[in-house]
């Protein structure tokens, strides 16, 4: 595919680069709402999860209660009748909790995976809907990152983040409830330690927020640098930049290393200090229990309560301890969501329907293709076409000749609405192309460009993709353009696999396959960009023949590089700097004595 030589606006690109480094919040309601849309279709799973979450929590929190009963009723009084059934019940709870928690995880993951699958397809559809100019500006790598890594980041959130965070919160509330019920005083005492916890969590959160952002930016910078230098390693070596490049890399590498310092500290503190605060809380509970021991209930009950409290406190602090890991995941997911949202908000629709549709009545009498005073620029202020007008009657061939940059390739892109014209009109059978359904238009007009792009898959798939044609039609088309020879040497024939970008076919063979692909489509209008690359003489002959066969009896617009093609055209257009400077048949133009005549003289001399 020829990439448009359109200079994209410089500013745009830089803004894009900055967007990569956007700071992520761990929680952003507006973004969550955007994500919610992808979860709604799987509401049933949400409901199941909502049923499972309390069941898991309930089964888990019943266990310390049993411990309390065990201590109070059996162990403290050293009286073991019926102890066995209590142990059995305990074991049952453990098993049930395991089952319930597994189901809960599974349902949540399924929900997440399905939502992400939908999101991925939504982005894909969105991206493919954009006009061609969008792709000139947007690096492929960035779009890929949106649809792979960023989605995986959000995915992680389902695995470890927001939903379990919610469940954790419910669990912590439930623990407080049970503890209050067991003993109000002990509970209050437990939460004397809470201020320490709040201060710690807040401090660690700040540290982490800064650190995670730093890490993400550094990692992205480092990988971009690596990618660039490895793919450009030849240039690095040719210009002897090895030492300079390593110096720059070491700077980035050091930044990357140091970005982790804060996160290592925050992580270590969070883990260790939360545990310490938990122990402190247990100490406080023990102390309070001792204070109450004289006045309150009997010792056995008190011991049971303390044993239960120890368990509950441990269970209360585990989610707090894991908060840092979840925080990182959440922040990453939010940043990814933000980037994806930005992409989804970029709307440059490809060939949109006009607001007021004109009457779509085809005029059989009109020329099949008509360019009427067409103006176009890829970038503002740099016109590529300046008032181009010409007609192609049914069955006729128009050849365009001109220098690189004269605007001839642009004609092709405009006819199929890959780019939208600024002024004037292009008509197909008398109807403005902007009033036609774009897929319909692109079915009627088939383009064969000089750099042939073949997709992975078999040759057959490449030939008939997007049509209703079958194998027989593909075979026929191959024979008709003389491309059957390409496959004759290959044992799998039409089922030959196409390597990445068609690397297992020569340039000439790819050309012939492209002709066959166009032939299968049997278009009303054929648009052909003849290849300039030199191929071996054998292929050259085959290609010349293939072109002639493809064009026979078909309305054709051809950007011509071969004299045979030009001489046989019904009309020749000579383009220069976005304008048609000469037009006519071969004989007329030679008689006219202009540019084309001069060119012809050069050629005649050569012959």
């Amino acid at each position, binding site marked *: 595919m020829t990439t448009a030589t359109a200079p994209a606006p410089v500013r745009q690109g830089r803004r894009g680069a900055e967007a990569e480094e956007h700071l992520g919040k761990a929680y952003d309601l507006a973004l969550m709402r955007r994500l919610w849309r992808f979860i709604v279709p799987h509401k049933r799973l949400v409901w199941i999860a909502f049923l499972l979450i309390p069941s898991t929590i309930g089964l888990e929190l019943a266990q310390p209660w049993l411990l309390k009963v065990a201590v109070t009723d059996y162990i403290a009084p050293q009286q073991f009748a019926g102890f066995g059934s209590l142990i059995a019940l305990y074991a049952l709870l453990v098993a049930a909790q395991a089952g319930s928690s597994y189901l809960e995880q599974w349902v949540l993951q399924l929900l997440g995976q399905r939502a992400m699958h939908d999101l991925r397809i939504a982005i894909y559809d969105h991206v493919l809907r954009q006009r061609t100019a969008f792709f000139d500006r947007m690096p492929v790598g960035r779009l890929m990152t949106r649809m792979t890594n960023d989605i995986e980041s959000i995915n992680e959130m389902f695995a470890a983040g927001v939903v379990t965070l919610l469940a954790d919160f419910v669990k912590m509330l439930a623990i407080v409830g049970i503890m209050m019920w067991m003993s109000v005083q002990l509970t209050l005492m437990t939460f004397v330690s809470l201020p320490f916890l709040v201060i710690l969590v807040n401090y660690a959160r700040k540290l982490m927020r800064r650190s995670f952002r730093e890490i993400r930016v550094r990692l992205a910078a480092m990988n971009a640098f690596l990618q660039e230098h490895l793919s450009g390693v030849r240039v690095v070596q040719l210009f002897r930049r090895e030492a300079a490049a390593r110096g720059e890399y070491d700077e980035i590498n050091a930044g990357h290393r140091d970005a982790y310092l804060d996160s290592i500290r925050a992580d270590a503190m969070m883990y260790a200090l939360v545990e310490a605060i938990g122990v402190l809380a247990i100490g406080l509970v023990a102390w309070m229990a001792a204070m109450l021991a004289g006045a309150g209930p009997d010792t056995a009950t008190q011991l049971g309560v303390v044993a239960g409290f120890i368990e509950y406190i441990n269970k209360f602090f585990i989610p707090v301890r894991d908060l840092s890991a979840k925080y990182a995941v959440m922040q990453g997911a939010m940043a990814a969501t933000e980037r994806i949202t930005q992409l989804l908000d970029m709307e440059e629709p490809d060939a949109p329907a006009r607001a007021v549709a004109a009457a779509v009545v085809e005029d059989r009498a009109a020329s099949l293709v008509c360019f009427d005073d067409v103006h176009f620029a890829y970038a503002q202020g740099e016109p590529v076409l300046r008032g181009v007008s010409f007609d192609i009657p049914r069955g006729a061939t128009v050849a365009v000749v001109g220098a690189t940059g004269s605007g001839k390739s642009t004609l092709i892109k405009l006819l199929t609405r890959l780019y939208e014209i600024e002024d004037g009109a292009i008509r197909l059978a008398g109807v403005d192309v902007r009033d036609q359904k774009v897929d319909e238009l692109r079915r009627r007009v088939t383009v064969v460009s000089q750099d042939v792009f073949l997709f992975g898959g078999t040759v057959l798939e490449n030939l008939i993709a997007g049509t209703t044609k079958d194998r027989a039609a593909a075979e026929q088309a191959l024979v008709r353009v003389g491309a059957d020879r390409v496959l004759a040497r290959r044992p799998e024939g039409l089922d030959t696999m196409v390597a990445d970008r068609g690397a297992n076919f020569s340039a000439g063979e790819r050309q012939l396959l492209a002709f066959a692909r166009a032939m299968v489509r049997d278009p009303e209008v054929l648009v052909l960009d003849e290849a300039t690359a030199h191929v071996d003489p054998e292929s050259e002959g085959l290609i010349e023949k293939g072109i002639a066969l493809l064009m026979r009896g078909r309305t054709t617009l051809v950007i011509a590089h071969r004299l045979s093609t030009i001489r046989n055209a019904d009309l020749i257009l000579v383009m220069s700097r976005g304008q048609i400077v000469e037009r006519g048949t071969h004989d007329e133009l030679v008689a006219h004595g202009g540019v084309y005549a001069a060119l012809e003289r050069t*050629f005649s001399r050569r012959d």
Partner: protein
Amino acid sequence: MPTPSVARLTAWSYLRRYRGPIGGGMAMLFLTNLLFVGIPVSTAGAIRAIQGPDPAAHVWPWALAMAVFALATALTRIWSRIWIFNAARAAEYDLRSDLFGHLLTLDAGFYRKNPTGDVMSRLTNDVQTVRAMWGAGILNVFNTGFAFVTVLVMMLRLDPITTAWAIVPFPTIVLVGRVFGKRIYKGSRDVQAQLGKLSSDLQEDLGGIQVIKSYALEPVRRKRFVAASEKLLQANMVLTRVRGQLVPVLGALSSAGSIIVLWVGGQRLSVDGLVEFSQYLARLVWPTLALGWMLSLMQRGQASWSRLEQLFATRPVVADGAGPAIPADELKGRLEIKDLTIEIDGRAILDHVSITMPAGTTTAIVGRTGAGKSTLVDALVRVSDIPKGTIFLDGRDLTTLPLGQVRTAIGYSPQEAFLFSTTIADNIAMGYGSGRAVPRARAEELDRIGARTAAADALDPMPGGVPDPRVVTATEAAGLAKDVARMPDGLATVVGERGITLSGGQRQRVALARALAKLPTVLILDDSLSSVDAETERIILGHLRAVMSARTSILISHRVAAVKDADQIVVLDAGKVAEVGTHAALLAKGGVYAELYQTQLDPDELGALTASQEVVS
């Protein structure tokens, strides 16, 4: 480029420099485990006090002890983690730096066999796995050891029988850790593989977007993408199931320990003993699991390390010659190719090629795609290896010269204009050893974290916003000045990833300016103006004539307009020199060159004609 010597390099060599912090971290780890024992002991003491007489008076020293031990444990633990993890990060830095330096010495042959994606994966995934082995690996293995030594002693002291029963599930926990470690690794690998497939599909779609649109292939491609996405979903679900099983299985196993303790210990121990015992047991669950986990982590770390080791062991085929270098005043630029044959995969790409290029002359090389033009250039700049005694620079065998001299003497503007995502000025300045590949915006960021160095600043081609005259001259010679003047940031314009913000022609001219800025003895232009429009090309060729007259030049092009005026034109055909001569002589001869000239309508000739006509009219 200093590369660590392979013979002595093991996975642990990189940690040697950080013996101090790692040793300190381990000492802290041991202290953590030792101090931890104080917590259950004082908890038990507190519970005994509750049961005893006058609990209010006796419990507070125990409660205080708990707090002190908890705090001490936390502090030592924090330091153990910080020391060990920071050391691992520091060692990772060294490893990355060495790897990158080494990669820059490897030649084209290596990169042909190892796509960038694969090398990137060595530098990201493998380095990460090795670092995990250094950090989490060391920490957990030692932690497990220390925990077992200290805690087990305490458990046995309380009651050997309960201890024996309590550790019954432990072998299973180790096993579970190991099995799940492996399963999760395999699951993630499958997910990665599916993700890779999805990515390559996607890359194809985005690369062929114009074909997709022109042929209305959207529904077909979409179906393919949806299928790939669904496969990824399935792979993810398999991984999820494994992960989802892990937590409940572990929970159940550790609870099984607790239940056993409750059942056995409940009947054998007092309440305080039971509580103390339970705390020990809980303490052991994580290290036990980690042990199994770490075994598989270590295994993967070693596998990653051996891949990195292999990379380090790869030596560039193209290496410095024995020397000495040609003295500067004797460097004239006479090139001689004698009977050069280069085979790739058994096929002769260049077949007994001999060409002589006197100093200061211009040689054009033409030929069809695949005739061997680019291979010849690669040989000249020693990107690919050549046999001894085949190419001579001023009479000296190229393979005997230091690589540095060859590459300094030869300025090369390759066919595909590769630019770094920095400013135009930086890209051009790279021609003469200045310039930075990280744009200044990033440099400011480095400033903020203090990672910027004076050496980096010396590379600024626009100190204080005033461009280096060498850059300006090259910009003008490459016909880029007008374009740059139109850009809002001028020479300081950042070109974006691979120069995406520039047009194809602009990119080529920046690459050309880079080669010109070098002021080389030999200038090679490999189809350097193919995306430039005809008129601009004519102007540039005009500039270049002046530049080229002073040096030996090699022009590769399939455009007649560009090669016509060369002192000699060499026609390559299927790796052989088919014809040599001037434009006129070759046309008269009526051979391959004449045929090339006639079968194709050269659009630039037309461009030149239209331009001249317009001037006339």
